[in-house]
Each structure stands twice: as C-alpha cells, then as structure tokens.
C-alpha cells in the first residue's frame, strides 16, 4: 500500500538520486547523457538544475519523474523505489504540452479524469485552479487563443490539479517573452512561499542563471560531456530577492564562474584526432559571425569582461554564449577565469584585423584542432585531392555517433571560412582550397 503521508519520516529527504547514469546506444557506440549523478532534495526545498545545453539536466529531470529509466543507479522517493512514472510527481513543460483541441478547462480536467475523479469534482477543482492562476473567464477558450504566458498558467493549473508532492519544472519560462516570464515567476513564488501549494518540493531545470538565483534555495550546477554535477551552491538570500542587490549580483557572478569553468590546458582542451585513442573534442556549435562579434565586444571592454554582463549586453542566453566562448578558447583568442572572459593578444589582433587577416589568423590557429587538421591532411595526401563526405562521416561516427554529421558540417564551415578546404554539395566531396596547394 502506498499513501502519501504515513511512510515518510519528516527528517529524511523527499528524493534521493544515487549514482544515476543514463546512456544510449549499444556496445560499440555509447552516448552517455548523464554520469554518476548524486542528488538529494529535502522537504520544503526549491532546487534548480542549472547548466549549458547538452549537460543532461532535462534527462535527469525525466529520470526523476519516472518518464525514463536510468541505465544504472537508483532514484528513491521517500526512501522507496518507484517503478515507472512517479505518481507523486508532475511536470510543467517548456513548450506547455497542452492539448490544442481541448479547452482550458478540459486540459485541466483530463489529468483528473485519468485519476477517475467524478465529473462534478473535476469541474469544481478545475474552476478553482483556473481561478487561482488568474485565468477565470477563459475556461472555454482554446490554448491557441491565449498568449504564451497564459498558456503556461494553464500548464501550472493542470500540474496543480493532481496535487503533486514533487513539482518538476522543465525550463517553464524560457519559451515566454521577458515580461510574461517575470510575472509568472513572481506569481509562482508567491504561491510557493505563501504555502498555497500542496507541493512539498520543487525541482526546476533552467539555463538562466538569474532565474535560478532569483527562485532557488539551492542551485545544482551541471557540466557536459558527459553530464555531471559540477558543484552545488546554496542561495541564502531573503525573499523577495532583488536583482540589483550587490549580494545577488555577487552570487550570480559566482554561479557564472561555476558554469563557464576555466580554460583548461592546451593538450587537455584540444584532445586527439578522430580515430586516435583519447578523447576527441567536439567542435562547439558556434557561428563565426558571432565569434567576431564577441571578440570586438571584448576588445571594446578593454580586453576583459564579466561573463554575466557580456551575456546581458549581447542579449545572449547562456546556451548561445558558451559555444562562442568555447570556440574562442579553442582558437586561443580568449580565456575564461573566475567568471570573466579575457582577450588574449592573439584575440586582440583578431578583433582589430581586416576580414582577410582574420581569415589568415583563424587558418593558422584552427589547424591545431585535431578534427580539422585530420580533414586537412587527409585531403592534401589524397591523389585526386577529392574525398567523399561519407569517408569522413564514417570515421567521425566512431567518435561522435549521431553527432558526426553535425560535427562534419561545423568542420566544413570552419574550413571554408579559413579557406583551408571546401565542399562540393552536388558531388558530396571535400577538396582542399587551391591556395593551399
């Protein structure tokens, strides 16, 4: 028998995640999404999972909610194993996941119907919750008639309808415009802090550092390749928290430093060539234009800038900023230390150079990246100076699996920019740029 209240002693954690690993694929091609994750959530806590895209934070959330099984390790809820979907948890989704053909009220009641609640109670509960989130009058509206913020309110109402003990939020504000997101955050915090929710703990996934500092009691910072917990940072600021507070800003800075890490040594950072033993570093999904923009901006700032401010100034989310920064680090144009980005002399030269000189600078540096060097050498040693795309793809699959095609496309972009090699789309072949012969 399972009941919601009797079996959990007050002192233990609501949720314990122990050594959870999730990997996909079979023996020869394994992709590990998260590795050896340990996490605890106590009664009454608001915990944020924070990290760049690809760090497996959403995967972890789904394992916790029971939507997918872990490959190894265990998830305990109130000290017990739960098979399949955790009946005491629910999720508010990033894209709302409302059923577009059901009205606001039907979207809320369908969750109750699945729990065999009788129609009058369903109706009453739905009306009360729709009222709570401030949508009364919209019961008969269809989601497409609502704004993004209002849709997410329906998402919250639906989640609350099943009275979850553990409320999981999967980037619930990231698909909203800035103002709606801010309003909705405030309303959620008001309900949560005012103990107006039957919820015992909240777990939120986000890549927005300010949002995490604004709302959470504790921030779990995750890193990628494979996803792991970097550190945990307790947020002990009083509510309501104010963004302009120095304490708030200092904490945001600290979290930024934890997320961005620091520039590793060169050998460690570049890795080995595809096919060779050792870890092959991925090319970050960054646009070259964005790199130029970042370098120029850093140069204007005098060569050093706070990542937090840089992101805000360039209106870049963490997910967009980090790959650009990573490519700058691979090229040796910038370094990251203590939450700051620092321009190297080479980076300064790049920022001040003409377009042609920039290409030459990149050409000189990008060849240190093992994947690009390997493609370049292969092409030059080929008798016909033309090699089929599929040749590279097959080799890259051993290192990157399903990502191989994206990696090759990125390599081609860099090769084209640096005028090292080019790609013939009609014949699916790569060839060296004539200038390099």
């Amino acid at each position: 028998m399972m009941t919601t209240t009797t079996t959990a002693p007050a002192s233990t954690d609501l949720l314990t995640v122990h050594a959870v690993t999730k990997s996909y694929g079979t023996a020869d091609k394994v992709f590990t999404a998260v590795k050896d994750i340990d996490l605890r959530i106590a009664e009454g806590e608001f915990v944020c999972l924070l990290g760049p895209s690809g760090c497996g934070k959403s995967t972890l959330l789904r394992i916790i909610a029971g939507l997918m099984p872990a490959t190894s390790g265990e998830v305990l809820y109130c000290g017990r194993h739960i098979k399949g979907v955790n009946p005491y948890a629910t999720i508010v989704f990033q894209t709302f996941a409302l059923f577009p053909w059901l009205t606001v009220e039907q979207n809320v009641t369908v969750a109750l119907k699945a729990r065999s609640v009788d129609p009058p109670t369903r109706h009453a509960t739905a009306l009360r919750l729709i009222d709570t989130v401030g949508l009364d009058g919209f019961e008969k509206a269809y989601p497409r008639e609502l704004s993004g913020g209002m849709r997410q309110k329906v998402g919250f109402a639906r989640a609350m309808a099943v009275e979850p003990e553990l409320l999981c939020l999967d980037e619930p504000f990231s698909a909203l415009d800035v103002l709606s997101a801010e309003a909705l955050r405030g309303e959620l915090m008001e309900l949560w802090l005012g103990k107006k929710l039957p919820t015992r703990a909240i777990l939120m996934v986000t890549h927005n550092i300010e949002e995490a500092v604004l709302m959470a009691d504790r921030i779990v910072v995750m890193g990628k390749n494979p996803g792991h917990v970097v550190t945990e940072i307790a947020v002990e600021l009083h509510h309501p928290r104010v963004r302009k507070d120095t304490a708030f800003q200092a904490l945001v800075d600290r979290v930024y430093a934890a997320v961005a890490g620091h520039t590793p040594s060169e050998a460690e950072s570049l890795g080995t060539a595809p096919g060779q033993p050792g870890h092959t570093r991925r090319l970050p999904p960054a646009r070259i234009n964005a790199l130029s923009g970042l370098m120029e901006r850093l140069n204007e700032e005098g060569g050093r800038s706070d990542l937090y401010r840089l992101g805000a100034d360039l209106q870049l989310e963490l997910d967009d900023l980090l790959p650009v920064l990573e490519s700058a680090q691979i090229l040796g144009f910038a370094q990251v230390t203590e939450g700051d980005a620092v321009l190297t002399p080479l980076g300064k030269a790049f920022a001040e150079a003409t377009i042609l000189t920039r290409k030459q600078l990149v050409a000189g540096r990008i060849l240190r990246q093992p994947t690009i060097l390997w493609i370049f050498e292969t092409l030059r040693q080929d008798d016909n100076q033309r090699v089929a795309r599929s040749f590279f793809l097959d080799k890259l699959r051993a290192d990157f699996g399903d990502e191989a095609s994206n990696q090759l496309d990125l390599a081609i972009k860099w090769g084209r920019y640096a005028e090292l090699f080019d790609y013939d789309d009609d014949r699916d072949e790569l060839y060296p740029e004539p200038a390099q012969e």
Partner: protein
Amino acid sequence: MRRPFRFGPVSLSRPSISAADLVVVAGLGAVLALAIRLAWRAPAVVAGPRISLAVSALPWYALLSTSRMAAAYVLSLGFSLAYGYFAARSQAARKVLMPLLDILQSVPILSFLPVVLLGLSALLPQGIATELAAIVLIFTSQAWNMTYSFYQSVTTVPQEMREAAAIFRLSPWLRFRVLDLPFAALGLIWNSMMSWAGGWFFLMAAEIFRVGSRDFRLAGLGAYLQTAADANDLKAVAAGVITLILTIVLLDQILWRPVLAWADKFKVEMVSSDAPPPRSWFYDVVHHSHLIGWLRRRCWLPVTERLDLRANLPAESEGTKGRGLWRRLSLAVLALLGFAAAAALLFGFYRAVVTLAGLPAAGWAALGTGVLATFGRVVASLVLALLWTVPVGVAIGTNRRLAGVLQPVVQVVASIPATALFPVLVLALLRVPGGLNLAAVILMLAGTQWYLLFNVIAGTAAIPQDLRDSADLLRLSRWQRWKTLTLPALFPFLVTGAITAGGGAWNASIVAEYVTFGGETHSTVGIGSLIAQATAASDYRLLLASTLTMVLAVVGINRTWWRWLYLQAEVRFKLE
C-alpha cells in the same frame, strides 16, 4: 509558413529494392496463386444484373453506389486505425508492417480485380461475391494512404505531449482519444477525402467489369452509364452523369465540408493563421441544432465518460497473474495463426511457381510486349498531362482572380471518376482507326491529370513571394523565369503528382485495353488487356503471370526511377 498539402505517396524516401520487398512480392504471388486456385471453380458463365435506363431508377442506383463506397470506407478507416496504431506502438510489428504497407500502396489495385472476383465467385453466391469484390477493391484503393497518414501522425506526436500524457498517467484508451486520434485527425480527414475521391474511380471500374461470358457488373451508377452508352441513349447518359455529379457534390456538402469545418480545432499550430477557417453551412446547421446538442449531452458524453473511466489503469496492487496467463494464451493463439498463415503462404508460393513454370514461352513473350505497350501508353498520358497541367496550374496558382473562378470548376470536373465516362468515350471513339488505343490513353489521362494539376497549383502557391519579387527585380525574361524559378520550385510537387498519376494510369489499363461494347469485344495489345483476356478465357496461368508482371513492373518503376527523382526533389529542390 504552413507546409502546403502535397497530394501523393510520401513513403519513397525509404531504401530502394530490399530483401523485404522481394519477400512481400513473393507473398503477394502466393496469395494470388491461392486465390486463383479457388477461381478454378468459378462459374464459366455469369449473368449480370438487369439495368433499367429509366431516370426514376437513378436515385436507387446512386444510393447503391454510395453504400458500397461507405462500406469500403468504414472498413478502410477501421483498418487504418488498427494497423497504423499497432505499427506505431510496436517496434517489432513496425519492421514487418511498414515495408508491407510500402509495397501495397504502390501495387496497381485494379489488376487484382479479376482474381478477387473469380475467387469470391467460387466461394459465395454471385450477388454477394461481386458486391464483396467491389468493396474489397475500393478498400484496397483507400486504405494505404490513410494508414500511412495515421501511422505518421502517431509517430510524430511532439515528445512533450507524449510525456504529458505519461506523467498524468492517461490510460492507453484515454491517450488514444485525447492525444493520438485528435493529433492525427486532420491528416486522416484529408487523406480520407482523397481516398474517397479515388474510390469512385475503382467503384465505377468494378461496376462495369464484364469479360467474355462473365458479366460481373453491379447495379449502380457505373453500370447505368455503361448500359446507356451501350444503347446509344444520350439522354440517359446525360441523366446519369448529372446524377453522379450531384451525388458527389452532395456528399461533399453534407459530409466532407462539415467534417473539415469541425476538424479545424485539431490544428496543432499554436498561432492563429491568416487563412480563414474552413466553413460549412451544413456544419453550422448541425452545430446549432438542439437535437444534436441533446444527443451529445445525453448519449455521447455519458458513453465516453464511462469508457474513459473504465479504461483507467487499475489500482497498483492489482495482481498481474491473470494478465500474465491471458498474455501467454493470446501469444499462443497468435503463434498458431502465424504458423497457419505461413504454411498457407508457402503452399501458395509453391502453387505460384508450379503455375508459372507451365506458362509457354509464347506467353512470356506476349507479357513482355504487353508491358511495353502499356508502359508506352502510361508515358504518353503522363506527357500529355504535364503539357497542359503545368502552364494551366501555374496560371491558376499565380493569379488569384483566375483561381477564384476556376478552382471550384476544376474541383467538380476532377471529382467525376474517369471510369464512369469511359463507356461514353468508347462510344465516341470506337469508329476512329486506332480508336481503342486513343480511348485508353484518354482514360489514363482523364484519371490522372488532376493529381498533377492540384500539385502544380499547390507548388506554385508555395513559391515564396520574395523569390517572385527578386525574379521581377532582376527582370528575368519569361524563359529565364521558368528555368530558374518556376520549374525548380515545382519539381518536388511534379514528382509526387506524377508518381500518383503514373500508378493511376497503370490501373486504368485493366478497363481501358479490353472493352465489351454493343455485344462485341474490342481489345488492344497491353498488359491490362492480357489480364482481362485471361479472365475471359479462364486461362489461370496467364492470369497469374500477367497480374504478377504488372505488379512487378509498377513496383520496379516506383523503386528505381521515381525513387531517384523523389530523392533529387527532396535533396536539391526543396524550398525551406
């Protein structure tokens, strides 16, 4: 931007001829051989129905024809939902079901008509056999694209919606009702409309099918038109055509338009689009009717409520012992059925090989020339269709005023099944030298040109305005504009249209190349003609060989030529 609707098969991006294909074709051969084995016992003389040419009989005939369509459609819908859902849910099932579906949808359906007719006639009383054969035939023409559409929808339900259904623990039934089915509804309805329109073509063919002393005709609009043409009764022909058009328009108004208007709420896009929602006067009437509202409250809602609650997952403590036993039992039954089916197929395959081995060399030579002759007609009809549909379609697609005037007209004309008018065509052309050849090409053309025209219109409408503006700004000459903008942009649409059109043309050959008219039999060289002749002469070897040859020819062409063009279209000419 909303992706414009493309009329045609969508499954060609699969690998070219594979082992699975060969297995499926061999299986088809086995099934055919078994059916033909039955056909041996089919009566040699079949008396057809008496068709009255009185105008007062027309409503009754229209009702008969429509009922056959409805029966076949209900069958198709049920099949699509079950097959598509099963294929989408079970990985193992998908591996078998999807290649099977892929071949089935490129098989020329009409080539099976004789075999099915003969097989059923041997088993059942004549009236029932012909009715059933017509329904089976229409079913096989309707089911595949609906199934494919439903399968595709179920497998592309957005991940977060699926997760929401899981986290709120919707029962499989409730998830089907509030997620899978609504998500698939629009595609299913569009495909239903296409299937329904295509069904008329096959129904008319089935209603007028008559070879030698076997008269397999069915009382209905098709047979009426044929009898009228046979009797040279132009007044009756006119009355028949008008009734047919009225029936089709009426069904459109009180069935498909209302369904489309109702289904507008199943649009998945979260933005309200600029295009006005589809409207239907009949839907408005029904929607505001008190009787319907009362039925909904009193019957529909209580019933679904009970179904929904009953389907909910039982409490967690409930034992799984009984279910385990049930599961094992059903597995055993399935295994037994599978074994029986496999044995029957093997036997059928053996029969097929034995039967085919007995076919003399002259027979094979005739098959070769037949395929080539029919192929020539198909190509001719496609070229002719392209020659007029591309300029006209582009004109309609670019000119809004023209589109407003022509589109309704085109829709009505296109909805007349070409097979219904075929007897009239024969009446007109039989005296011309090479008349049957010409009539055959015109029938193929008439049956297929609409797919092309609609695709050209859709393709033209999909050319982005900024590209058209650039073409204007660059002052491209007429020819340059066609070469650099219009034709490349149309290419994917032309290919999908031509694939469907080509399939339709092969189908038409069965009724077009062999005609019994005014008591005389006229035939021309072709594979369709061979199938019909074999049926008339009870030459079961030739019937099996010619039917299989046609299947192989069409599947082969689809898998090589069309697949290659389709890939080109997908990779190089896609406007994103």
